[in-house]
Structure formats: structure tokens, C-alpha cells
């Protein structure tokens, strides 16, 4: 069979965002995949030249609509390290709470999109229906559903009252119950397994060598999660990374599904231990030096490299998002798969292209 070159994307029914792959196929088996980016490149890092280090918080929150609060958290903790700020304990817990809410809604969003990718429309709607509850929690506590704008250098801008905390815990019970009801459908259904088990295998060695991040890394048997470093309040919470070993599409689904319950547990722990106190300390001085700041987003590790020289404007803001890290592993997974599996396989790295291109 002669080799055929097939363009995949940038517009494709399963892709919420534009990614182009040039697929070389033989007899409907992918032999090679070459990516093409640049459809949603916004030059957000460049804005650091004309926005001061406080204004940049609003910019980095807009790198991604799904994990906006974690971008701001990663950026702020980098600036705080440069300025030697000690964030109040309550602020650390509140940051953890909003971050874990983000993880739940992101994973529910992904599970819905994933179900839609293999034609399971009703499952898609069920996951998104549950997700709405979490979006309501975010709106209640932050005033916004998507861009939360809760982080600032030195702490957080908003508090969560005891009444709100109780409502969140009650809602989480519903989220937990309703998500559990979908477990047998997403993880045990024969048709779902047919599309995911043994597909797009990324071995443990390859995942490490290719710099995979997040659930893509952990589904290949590597217990690495930046939350293990104990940033925000994670050092005071009982936590172990969710790990699967098969490295296939199914394993990546299982990791995300289990991480929803892990996030609910972390939220319960955080509310149980939420200390009283200040929400923020007032920053003094201006950021000087270089810092590498990392946070575990729903899609994996995000890295910020910040460089300041004691001026209002940073000399450099560099952002490496998890999808950027997961593109080389994706290119390794695609060769050998059926053309029909390409959309499902791409979705299992939970691609966020606007994050990747910034």
C-alpha cells in the first residue's frame, strides 16, 4: 500500500481548539505525524514588556480558561519567591481550594469531551451537567465562573465564608455521588474499552524520556506530581499521586477519573484544616533575580520562568504549559495506531492549544 499524506485539523469535530497534524498513513495505519502550531498564538509573554508585574497576573490568568487560577498561582508564587514574601496560611489553603475546584471541573470537562469524541453524546452531557455544579461553586466563591482572579502577589483577594464552605461541602457530596454513578459507564462499558484499552500506549521509559506531564505521565506508571513538593497547603494535606501502569488511553482516563475523587478529598481536608488569619501580606520592593516556579495543573506540570531586575516590569516571563510537554509523547504514540483512533488518542493528552501557544 502506498503512503498517503492526510491533513488532520486544524478544524476537526473532536478538537475544541485548532491543532494541525500531517499524518502519513499506510493502509489506514499511521506511520508518522508532524505537528503544525500557530493558529492561536497570542504573544502573551511579550506583554510583560508593557504590563507591570502586578498587571501580568491578569494576563497569565488568560493563558487558559480552564486552569486560569493555577496560572496565576504559579506566577504569584514565583514573584513571592523573588521578593521573599511569606504568604499567610489561610491564603495558602484558599489557593489550594480554588486549585482543586479547577481540577474537578477540568477533568469533568475532559471526560465529557472524551465521551463525545467516541460518539457517546449522552455521557458527554452527564459529565458536563455535573461540571456545572463546580462552576457554580467557583462563581459563588470568586464571583466568576472561569477567570477567578483570586490570586495576588502575597496571598489571595477573596475569602470563603463558613456558610459558603458548608454549601461547597454539600455540593461536593452531590458531585461525588453523581460522578460515581457514571463510573461503570466510562470505565466498564465494552464499547468504551474497545476504543481505549491498548490504544496509544506510552511506556514508562518513553513517558520519562519524552518529558510527559500530568495524567499522561502518571498513567504510564510514574508517580510524579508537582503537588508532592508541598506548595500552597499541599504539604499539610494527605496526598499521593494517582498512578496507573498500562500507559494507554484507558489508563489516562482512569487517572483523570480517580483524580476527581482525590480532589474532592483534598477539598474536604483543606476545609477541615482551614486556619483563621490574614488573606495577604503587603509586598515590599520589586522582584529581582530569576525563579523557576511550578504548579500541577489538571493537565500536568506548568512551569514559569520569571526574570526581574528590580523594576516594575519583568525582563522575561516564560511559560511552559503541560500540553506543550505532552506533544512529543503524542507524536510517539500516534505511529502504529488506526486512523480512526487518532481523534481519541489526541484527546487523551487533554490538549489545550491556546495554553500551548500562549
Amino acid at each position: 500500500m502506498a503512503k498517503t499524506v492526510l491533513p488532520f485539523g486544524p478544524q476537526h469535530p473532536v478538537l475544541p481548539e485548532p491543532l494541525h497534524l500531517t499524518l502519513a498513513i499506510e493502509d489506514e495505519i499511521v506511520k508518522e505525524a508532524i505537528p503544525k502550531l500557530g493558529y492561536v498564538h497570542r504573544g502573551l509573554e511579550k506583554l510583560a514588556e508593557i504590563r507591570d508585574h502586578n498587571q501580568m497576573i491578569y494576563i497569565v490568568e488568560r493563558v487558559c480558561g480552564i486552569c486560569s487560577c493555577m496560572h496565576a498561582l504559579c506566577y504569584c508564587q514565583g514573584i513571592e519567591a523573588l521578593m521573599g514574601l511569606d504568604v499567610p496560611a489561610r491564603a495558602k489553603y484558599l489557593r489550594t481550594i480554588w486549585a482543586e475546584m479547577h481540577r474537578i471541573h477540568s477533568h469533568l470537562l475532559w471526560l465529557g469531551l472524551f465521551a463525545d469524541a467516541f460518539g457517546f453524546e449522552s455521557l458527554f452531557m452527564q459529565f458536563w451537567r455535573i461540571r456545572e455544579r463546580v462552576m457554580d461553586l467557583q462563581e459563588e466563591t470568586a464571583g466568576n465562573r472561569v477567570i477567578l482572579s483570586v490570586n495576588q502577589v502575597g496571598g489571595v483577594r477573596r475569602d470563603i465564608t463558613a456558610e459558603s464552605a458548608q454549601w461547597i461541602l454539600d455540593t461536593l457530596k452531590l458531585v461525588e455521588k453523581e460522578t460515581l454513578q457514571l463510573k461503570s459507564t466510562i470505565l466498564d462499558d465494552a464499547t468504551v474499552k474497545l476504543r481505549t484499552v491498548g490504544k496509544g500506549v506510552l511506556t514508562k521509559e518513553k513517558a520519562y524520556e519524552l518529558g510527559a506531564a500530568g495524567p499522561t505521565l502518571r498513567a504510564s506508571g510514574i508517580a510524579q506530581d508537582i503537588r508532592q513538593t508541598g506548595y500552597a497547603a499541599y504539604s499539610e494535606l494527605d496526598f499521593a499521586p494517582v498512578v496507573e501502569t498500562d500507559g494507554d488511553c484507558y489508563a489516562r482516563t482512569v487517572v483523570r477519573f480517580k483524580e476527581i475523587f482525590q480532589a474532592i478529598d483534598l477539598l474536604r481536608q483543606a476545609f477541615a484544616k482551614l486556619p483563621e488569619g490574614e488573606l495577604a501580606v503587603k509586598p515590599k520592593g520589586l522582584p529581582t533575580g530569576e525563579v523557576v516556579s511550578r504548579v500541577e495543573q489538571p493537565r500536568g506540570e506548568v512551569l514559569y520562568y520569571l526574570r526581574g531586575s528590580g523594576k516594575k516590569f519583568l525582563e522575561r516571563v516564560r511559560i511552559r504549559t503541560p500540553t506543550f510537554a505532552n506533544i512529543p509523547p503524542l507524536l510517539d504514540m500516534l505511529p502504529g495506531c488506526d486512523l480512526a483512533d487518532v481523534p481519541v488518542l489526541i484527546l487523551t493528552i487533554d490538549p489545550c492549544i491556546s495554553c500551548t501557544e500562549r
Partner: protein
Amino acid sequence: MIDSAVVVTEENTAEIRPDEVITQSRALKDEGFRFVTMSSAELAESVCVLYHFDKDLEIRNLRVDVPKGSKIGSIATVYSCAFLVENEIKEHFGVDFDGIPLDFQGMMYNDEEVQRTPFCNIGIKRV
């Protein structure tokens, strides 16, 4: 406990010459380090390129000052996943990485009509 926000210091960052980048990266890989990414910043006469690696969550950096518009070896021969960020730095800062297996020729994000590197005001050398 390991910090997740690590200030770049001499303790975690080795300054190396451009011609050492491949051998030093290989040495880190042999020690079990994972390639995380690269960062870059414009200096007066050069571009500072920082290579970030980690092992057991601990960050280790290599710092290289590359004279503007000059070439440096691609570490994609050591860590194949580095090709993507090398293409990005080439496009944004004009650092030419010698031997990138998949070279977007300075057009990974930008279109062909963009003739200057956005973060470093020098012309893009198009092949």
C-alpha cells in the same frame, strides 16, 4: 520538602559554554534527569538560554550565553522532545539550533511574512 518555586542560583545552575551543551545534557540524562523545558532571555550582546531538568522533582539548570544570531547544538539528539522548545526559541530569539530533527524554519507560530524575531530584535535567517 522541595520548593516548587526555585530561585535560580549557582547551587542549582551550572554555567557552561555553548560547545558543552550536548555533553552536559548527556551527562544529566545519564544521571537520570528528565528534560523539562528551556527558557531564554535577551541580554545586551547575547541570548541567555536556560535548560531545565528535574529528577525526583528537584530542578537543575544549565545556563548558556549564546551570542546573538549565532548557532548552538541541538540537544534533541540527547532528549528528542527538546525539538519543540528549540524551534520556539529559534523563532522568538533568533538562536539557531544546529541539527534540530524537525525544523520549522522560524515559522512554528508566526507566518512567513514575519521577518524579525519578536523577543530579540534581529532578523530571522530563513533557509
